[in-house]
């Protein structure tokens, strides 16, 4: 998809973003530009640092000692609480006794097959694909897995725009072992659905999820799941 924004235009918007005045509609445009422009990413950091110097001109008002005590009491209480299983472990555990998705399994599931996913990827050839639903608190979407081209397209509605410091990262989750960061969701034009394209086989993964991560992605998902779905055929 062509980036319609010049660095000059992007820089104007980055200055607005740094002081918090950027309009939500412009955020998606500037995010798309930042995704491919290192100089503007650097300029974004510089403007953010400059804006954060504004409070340095204020007279420092120290918080009451009570606030520190309250905060640290809460932190230490949570630090010693028994640890819960990670959210992705719970997701895997919640999967009913269906068959995990495999390349062979998917081809056999005629009922779930839809035709025409490749129109999304810009090709006209008909090919078979399997569609799964994904959902979260506000988000809904579908994952279309092309079983012949070994490509999957995740399309999601209902996600809110993120600041330039964050991305939606898509994870493929195996029944055992750590989730694999597979792609980032890109915002659609004019508030359209978010999409992510993933190459390679989906075989061996039982769930998919998306989380909010710092720009550039994380080695493991944080506890900020915005949607999830199961790659199983019941």
């Amino acid at each position, binding site marked *: 998809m062509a980036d319609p924004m010049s660095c000059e235009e992007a820089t104007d918007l980055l200055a*607005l973003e*740094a002081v918090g005045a950027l309009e939500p509609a412009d955020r998606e445009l500037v995010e798309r530009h930042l995704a491919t422009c290192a100089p503007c990413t650097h300029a974004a*950091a510089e403007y953010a*640092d400059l804006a954060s110097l*504004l409070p340095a*001109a*204020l007279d420092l008002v*120290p918080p009451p000692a009570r606030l520190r005590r309250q905060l640290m009491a809460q932190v230490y209480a949570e630090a010693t609480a028994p640890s819960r299983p990670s959210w992705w472990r719970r997701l895997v555990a919640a999967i009913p006794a269906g068959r995990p998705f495999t390349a062979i399994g998917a081809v056999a599931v005629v009922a779930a097959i839809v035709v025409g996913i490749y129109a999304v990827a810009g090709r006209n050839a008909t090919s078979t694909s399997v569609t799964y639903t994904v959902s979260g608190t506000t988000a809904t979407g579908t994952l279309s897995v092309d079983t012949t081209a070994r490509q999957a397209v995740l399309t999601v509605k209902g996600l809110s725009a993120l600041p330039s410091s964050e991305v939606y990262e898509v994870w493929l989750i195996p029944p055992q072992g750590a989730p694999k960061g597979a792609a980032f969701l890109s915002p659609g034009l004019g508030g359209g659905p978010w999409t992510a394209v993933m190459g390679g086989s989906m075989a061996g993964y039982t769930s998919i999820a998306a989380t909010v*991560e710092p720009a*550039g992605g994380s080695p493991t998902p944080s506890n900020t799941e915005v949607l999830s779905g199961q790659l199983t055929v019941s």
Partner: protein
Amino acid sequence: MHLSDDDIVRSISAHSPEGIEALYDRYGGLAHTVALRILSDRGAAEDVVQESFLAVWRRGSTFQPGRGSLRSWICTIVRNRAIDRLRGDRHRTRLDSPIEGESIEPTVSDPWAAVAVELSAEEVRKALAELPAEQRQTIELAYYGGFSQSEIATKMEVPLGTVKGRVRIALDKLRASLADRMETSWPTQ
């Protein structure tokens, strides 16, 4: 022992309570100052500071060195939460909670850090004072008032493009002016 910002980030990433403690001791005062400037309400400002540091604790550090300093990261977290609260409160009346007698504890334990903060406050004040009034007002409406580009345009009765231009020129001028001051106040190596 003096922890660098990098040490603090590593400690938070390792989910260590000491990391949050160090973060609070270094930037809690700044966080409280920002929240109070935005909300003009002690109780609300304290809530926002507590929520912000707890969010960092619960979620782990999402700080990325390439995307700005630790200082600007925590400022942004606190500012955004305070603005969210302010915007919510614009549509309802608050019952002000009584302020109890409370002690103040120093938030800066490192004397060199204290000097740096004071120096920078004075330098930043001067640099801000040099901006034309309409530019300074524009960035303050945005940063402390939580107004968006179009809201500022309406408030100041200027076109959208003027707001955009003023913010960028103001930040570019601030950068140039602070860079000059840094060169004159810090001996070059």
